[in-house]
């Protein structure tokens, strides 16, 4: 079972829900932190470092002697990553999507693909939780290839449950994270901004066609419009986490709420049951 924890708005509690769900699961499981621009599950899921390696994408390199400046590479590139000036290609690695088209179509065979580092993948073991995290280098713009590399670790997870901490927003990084999941949990806060961005996220998840439900975090803050919207739109509310100062304190201390505030353990155990219901009964909102 593969479940993504996502939201439209940032700061609604994706990581909070992810790490506490992970801790309250009965069996060993895997957390993939796909929020590669700001991965922070590691602040809570602390543990032994298992492995760490740099991640590279392939980008073109020009052999200046072989190149005759024909411009086919620049015309092939759909991403405007190559300009040919004074008979020489200029390559903009930041814009390259590693499609390899320029190398394939170069009549002079002057283009070769070489590795270009964009981030780091770190694997930790925090108790029964295996955490795989991607961290994009500062100044790099391409989150999706690194997210794909993090998700590639699914293959070695031996059928264990996988939780994916998704990046905020509804653009490519979020869509790639949730793409092949069995269910999506959308974490929303009951405010005007929370409702607005939840609606964007709902539109996105419906388009992708995955069962989903909503967790209302900081319930009691703001108003009831998020709950009313879910009811009207036929979206199951999987759980409500109260707006409780104790939770904020525990979180700010880097503690797991399910450890330090046992009264909330039940909430996360019930949330697991709701998620399983969503996956196995396909009873969620499809669209």
């Amino acid at each position, binding site marked *: 079972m593969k479940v993504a924890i996502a939201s439209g708005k940032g700061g609604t509690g994706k990581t909070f829900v992810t790490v506490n769900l992970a801790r309250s699961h009965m069996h060993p499981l895997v957390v993939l932190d796909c929020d590669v621009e700001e991965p922070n599950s590691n602040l809570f899921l602390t543990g032994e470092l298992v492995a760490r390696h740099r991640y590279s994408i392939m980008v073109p390199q020009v052999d200046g002697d072989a190149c005759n400046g024909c411009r086919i590479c*620049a015309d092939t590139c759909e*991403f*405007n*990553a190559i*300009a*040919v*000036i*004074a008979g*020489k290609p*200029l390559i*903009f690695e*930041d*814009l390259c999507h590693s499609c390899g088209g320029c190398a394939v179509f170069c009549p002079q065979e002057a283009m070769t693909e070489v590795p270009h580092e964009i981030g780091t993948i770190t694997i930790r073991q925090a108790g029964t939780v295996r955490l795989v995290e991607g961290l994009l280098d500062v100044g790099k*713009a391409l989150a999706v290839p690194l997210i794909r590399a993090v998700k590639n670790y699914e293959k070695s997870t031996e059928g264990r449950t996988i939780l994916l901490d998704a990046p905020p927003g509804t653009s490519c990084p979020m869509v790639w994270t949730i793409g092949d999941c069995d269910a999506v949990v959308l974490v929303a806060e009951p405010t005007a901004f929370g409702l607005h961005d939840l609606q964007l996220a709902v539109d996105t998840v419906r388009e992708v066609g995955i069962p989903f439900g909503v967790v209302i975090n900081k319930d009691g803050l703001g108003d009831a419009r998020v709950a009313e919207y879910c009811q009207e739109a036929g979206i199951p509310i999987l759980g409500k986490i109260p707006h409780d100062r104790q939770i904020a304190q525990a979180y700010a201390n880097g503690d797991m709420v399910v450890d330090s505030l046992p009264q909330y353990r039940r909430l996360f155990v019930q949330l697991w049951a709701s998620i399983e219901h969503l996956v196995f009964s396909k009873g969620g909102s499809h669209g």
Partner: protein
Amino acid sequence: MKVAFTASGDTLESAFDSRFGRAEKFIIYDMENGTFAVIDNGQNFQAAQGAGIQSAQHVVASGAQALVTGHLGPKAAKVIFAAGIAAYHADAKTVGEAVSMYKSKALKPMRDADVEGHWV
């Protein structure tokens, strides 16, 4: 000598566009005889990414030896300077005004990009 100006319309009366990569048009003004040609940059106006690079290639292809614009990002600057084109910063209301400023040598040359790149 031809000079490229970023414009939002087809005439010298049209507004000077301070943006380079996503300028709507380029007016290529011939300093010798006072005539000009217009290059439509609409495709890059809407480009998802790399608008500055493509726009810079338009300017290079136009044969212009100088560029007058508001701001230049790092990727566009790389292409412009690689082509040996001189870039000037202007703070003008119309293209005609920018042309006069260029003629009276009132414009500051740009040695490098003056704004950061941005991501979609």
